[in-house]
């Protein structure tokens, strides 16, 4: 179970404090698929990074399976079963796809077959990619899918995906949503997916709308989807209403 208690994150902007996340509290129970959505710049990525330890909150607590992990390093959190697929994954000159998946899996003897399975799950033809370096020769969409494959290979208890749909073609996207569905159905992990895609939102047990650094709304996909759709058509009622359950 993941719990955030009064998490705040602020940065110094000249003389003023700029609040990026303002008092976020939420609980996500095991094996749930939760989608974070909301306008760009709302604070979704920052929130995910705070869970992974990539960003330190200004105040508040993060608990994972009852343990306070607020002071733990990224590595320690990773080893406790938290993983995060970057919105903009870095490239590595010299590291092959296979090596990266091997590191992610934590199994030095990860077989070629297993690597291939992870790649297939994100819609990549394994043979074309295993020995390629994760460098500038790959397109943004390819790097993004390899990034997602590393999270699958990690197979951790909590998987956070940050806009996994970005830069991905329709066919791979379909393959990817199937993969999310499978993980969810197997009940093997808790998933937080940051996404704007209706197809992904509709898979969610719960949808959390994040805007202006706060939780604007929480509810089931059936409740939230119509509101998001109407928001995008006319104004921003969800966000301007500002009334979010807790």
């Amino acid at each position, binding site marked *: 179970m993941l719990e955030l208690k009064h998490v705040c994150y602020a940065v110094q902007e000249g003389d003023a404090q700029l609040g990026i996340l303002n008092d976020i509290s939420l609980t996500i129970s095991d094996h749930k698929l939760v989608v974070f959505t909301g306008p760009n710049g709302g604070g979704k990525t920052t929130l995910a990074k705070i869970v*992974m330890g990539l960003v330190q909150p200004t105040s508040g607590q993060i608990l994972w399976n009852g343990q306070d992990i607020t002071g733990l*390093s990224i*590595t320690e959190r990773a080893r406790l079963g938290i*993983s*995060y697929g*970057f919105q903009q994954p*870095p490239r*590595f000159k*010299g590291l092959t796809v296979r090596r990266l998946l091997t*590191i992610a899996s934590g199994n030095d003897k990860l077989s070629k077959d297993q690597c291939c399975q992870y790649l297939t799950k994100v819609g990549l033809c394994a043979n074309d990619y295993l020995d390629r370096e994760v460098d500038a020769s790959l397109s943004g969409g390819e790097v993004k899918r390899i990034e997602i494959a590393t999270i699958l290979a990690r197979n951790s208890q909590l998987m956070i995906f940050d806009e996994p749909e970005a830069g991905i073609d329709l066919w791979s996207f379909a393959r990817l949503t199937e993969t999310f569905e499978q993980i969810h159905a197997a009940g093997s992990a808790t998933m937080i997916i940051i996404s704007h895609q209706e197809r992904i939102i509709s898979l969610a047990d719960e949808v959390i709308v994040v805007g202006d650094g706060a939780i604007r709304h929480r509810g089931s996909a059936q409740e939230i989807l119509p509101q998001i759709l109407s928001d995008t058509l006319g104004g921003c009622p969800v966000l301007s209403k500002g009334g979010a359950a807790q």
Partner: protein
Amino acid sequence: MMETEVDRELLEKIADMLGKPVGAFNIRKDCGCDGRQSTEHIKIDNRTDGKSGIDIRILDGTVGETCHIPVIITKPGVQETVYNDFYIGENCNVEIVAGCGIHNCGEQDSRHDGVHTFRIGKNSHVHYSEKHYGEGDGKGGKIMNPQTIVYLEEGASIQMDTVQIRGVDSTKRYTKIVCGKGAEAVVTERLLTHGEQVAESDMVIELNGEDAKGRVISRSVAQDTSSQVFRPCVVGNAKCFGHVQCDSIIMGSAKISSVPEIAANDTEAQLIHEAAIGKIAGEQLLKLETLGLTEEEAEDCILKGFLA
């Protein structure tokens, strides 16, 4: 041969040799010959001009054979210049593994200057690899100054892979490759310096014949207060293609200077150079940490990959 643990370790490090190699070989240890084997097609003999070193003659049409010529220095204070000349016939395809390992526990410097000259005949391909390695905790320096001169005849090619990872206090390398018609030279250089080490590498690839190709890929890492200077130069004297690529990671208080040069003396010469120096990107470390590696493991992993 191969009496001691030190010998075994050095030979494995520099020439991937475990036990007696297959094919032709010559093992040089502390200025002496510690084992030699010629084969039907590869003949190894002492030089006849009084200089120390060997002549290696490879007969026309020799395909799929290997020749190992490692050098190890296990005593402090050994200083030597060695001349090895390779005469490679036509239509060959051979692998030559050189390399030098110095184990120095003493106070005096040990130095090996290897001067290798290759004459590679028509349509022959040579894969030449050379690893340099130093160890031992004495004050004595471990110094290597290799010179490699290659002449490629029509249609001949060489792939030259050099690696120096840790342990060599000072190196000054010079490489010159002269390419005839349709000849091709591919040079990959891998270098890691640390502590107060210094490394300098000068390289000249002359593309003299029509359709000659030259490619230099240099990757280096400089740590601590070490310093590196690269001066790869590709000269196009005919319709040819040349590419120089230098990529370095700088760490600690190290210094790197990368000066790739291209020079064209023919309107049909097509030459490109690229050079980059930068530190390890923070995002790369963070990403690997999210995969469960510690910061040190992440750094190590990035450097290993970069220099692989």
